[in-house]
């Protein structure tokens, strides 16, 4: 096993890209991966670690170019047979199953930007969160635990509560007033705005638009979420965890 370790580590250090194999990656067969895990556990785990990420006795196999280039044992099989202290009499089937297990670890690593389980965000203090809600955070200015927030702890998962508290979604479209002269203005749902035009749909459903580079056209937008955006500069992470813990209690 030790010589394989040296071989694998050596190929890292040289960054020896060599000849690429077939480019379509080996598709992992879950059943074969399970059987391969048994082979791995029996013969490889002591040196290469439970997750194949290596130990002081053996290198990381997920980062191994030899493993990455292998297809169903075409690289690993011959390497095992050449090296001392390795299991040299594995059948071709066992070697192939071993590759399914290793490829499974590689693919899982390549995708681990997505969580296996939602993070635990309930690490704050409920009473501190309640105090912040009613005090420094000024949340109670607009929100009520028995009003609009009643039951939010039931309605949303903790991580969604955290996201919605920090980055609330717009519950209704933005309203805009466009003043076109001293005595004429139009109010409605904002349809579009850029540097050059503004458009709204009024209460009757009529769509209207105006150029903005005209001196007498003035645009007024009342964004109820503006206060939430301003708050982002003021929160500490502990504030956030405390408030989420409090909101989660609102069952």
């Amino acid at each position, binding site marked *: 096993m030790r010589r394989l370790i040296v071989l694998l580590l050596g190929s890292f250090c040289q960054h020896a890209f060599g000849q690429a194999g077939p480019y379509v990656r080996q598709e992992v067969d879950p059943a074969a991966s399970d059987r391969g895990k048994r082979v791995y556990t029996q013969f490889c785990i002591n040196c290469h670690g439970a997750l194949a990420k290596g130990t002081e006795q053996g290198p990381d196999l997920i980062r191994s170019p030899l493993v990455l280039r292998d297809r169903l044992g075409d690289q690993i099989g011959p390497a095992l047979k050449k090296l001392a202290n390795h299991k040299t009499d594995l059948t071709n089937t066992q070697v192939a199953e071993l590759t399914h297990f290793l490829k499974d670890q590689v693919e899982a690593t390549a995708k681990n930007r997505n969580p296996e389980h939602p993070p635990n965000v309930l690490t704050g203090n409920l009473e501190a969160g309640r105090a912040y809600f009613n005090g420094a955070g000024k949340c109670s200015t607009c929100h009520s635990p028995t009003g609009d927030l009643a039951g939010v702890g039931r309605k949303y998962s903790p991580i969604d509560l955290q996201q919605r508290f920090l980055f609330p979604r717009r519950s209704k479209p933005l309203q805009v007033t466009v003043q076109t002269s001293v005595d004429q203005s139009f109010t409605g749902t904002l349809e579009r705005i850029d540097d*050059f035009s503004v458009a709204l749909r009024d209460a009757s459903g009529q769509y209207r638009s105006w150029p903005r580079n005209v001196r007498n056209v003035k645009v007024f937008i009342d964004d109820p979420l503006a206060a939430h955006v301003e708050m982002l500069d003021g929160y500490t992470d502990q504030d956030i965890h405390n408030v989420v813990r409090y909101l989660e209690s609102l069952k």
Partner: protein
Amino acid sequence: MKRLAVFLFAVSAFGQATFPEAWPSYNGDTSGRRYSALSKINQSNINSLSLAWVYRVNPGRAPQAGGGNVNTTIKGTPVIVNGVLYTTIPDHVWAIDARTGSVIWHHVWTSKGGWHIGNRGVAVLRETVYVETPDCNLVALNSKDGKERWHTQICDLEQFYYASVAPIIVKNHVITGVSGDDLDIPGYIESHDPDTGALQWRWYAHPEPGTPEAKTWPSVEAMLHGGGMTWVPSTYDPDLNLLYFGTGNPQPVIAGQGREGSNLYTECIIALNPDTGKLAWYFQPSPHDTHDWDAVQTPVLFDGEINGQPRNLLAQASRNGWFFVLDRATGKNVLSSEFVKTNWTLGVDAKGQPIPNPAKQPKLDGALVTPNQGGAINWPSPSFNPETGLFYANAARAWSIYYLYDDDDKPEGWGGNDRSGFSEAMLQAIDYKTGKIRWSHKWPGNGGGVRSGLLSTAGKLLFAGDPSSNFVALDPATGEPLWHAALHTSVTNGPITYELDGVQYLVVGAGDTLYAFAMRAR
């Protein structure tokens, strides 16, 4: 003679007036300023600009096995040489008549895999067009007919590398870069022979084991798998004979507990000798990054004045929200400042490098961080205008929560991620002498980052895409919007300008379409 002129431009035009009828490389010239001396399109006549032609790319068929989905978004900056415009999407190169938009040839690379996230364009030298492919090849095409001259492997698909950057020509070198951060692999940059594709040198984005810089990693094993991809084109100073580029995030990307230290040479602005690949200096915008804030943004080269003294400068608006001005001969810091407000540092160190706040590293229960993973700016190109002395960045103020998913002592891959939040887009004009924002134009409408590069011209115009699918011209001195064209979708590349037959053209990509405007008024 024209071919010779183009070649000479490609190797020696730093700091000089731009070669007006062409846009011969990714940034137009080797400085990265994206400033054109053309002025036939200017403030006085911008509203007479007319549509010259429109070209919609049609890849025809999907890449083959392992190639992923067709991505038809034009992210590359077109290159113009001898009246021919070259544009790309992954696996595809088109040569187009820059006067008419008519296709001259279309080269299709038969893909064997790799991420098809985008392609940043071609390099042209004499009669050869160079392009990188997602499946890790540098391909040389005959500029007359698009037929392949040769190709050579520049990275290993098996290790999850891919290639997307536009090659850059420096003297007798084709400079290539690589991409990929799914697994823990080292980044590098290479130089190839322009005639044969043979490798001239490779420089890895990590120190040699045993050197003082290697102590910025906990182990050789971590260092050799530490990332630092090179996916935005380089700039070059022919007087100093130095090549400049940025390196990407360290690996593992988010879970940094297995790579304590500053993790050189990831997240660095790098200066190399282009003939040897030897390191001249480095400066690290994001030591020990754990937020995926690749410091690959174009290092822009210009000559300026600091405290009354003429200086050879380099500036970068970095993805982490900080603006850096360096002496480009030495890499010494001249100035560090935020170009949008951030919350992740404890200040800067003696070298002018930000000191990351440990409290704002990803956490199991989340940490609120600005900027978000998309960054205060991303790959789209900035512009520096020597007339105004302002550095322009199409920026975003964006927030997200960073989570750590893998708290193992040796995480691999990413081991965490961010989850999106609030974002607002703005165009920032930065005074390079002070780092202060001279003017800021907040783009109205829905927030979110803008993936449009910038162009400034001697016509006293600054061109940009906004979040509302407009292609906009602004006054570079004040930020006042002056003109716009409503496109079918948002700008997705860097605009360029060139002159043919006495007519100044302006070309911009939006999604799968190139729009060309021309000033035909006399």
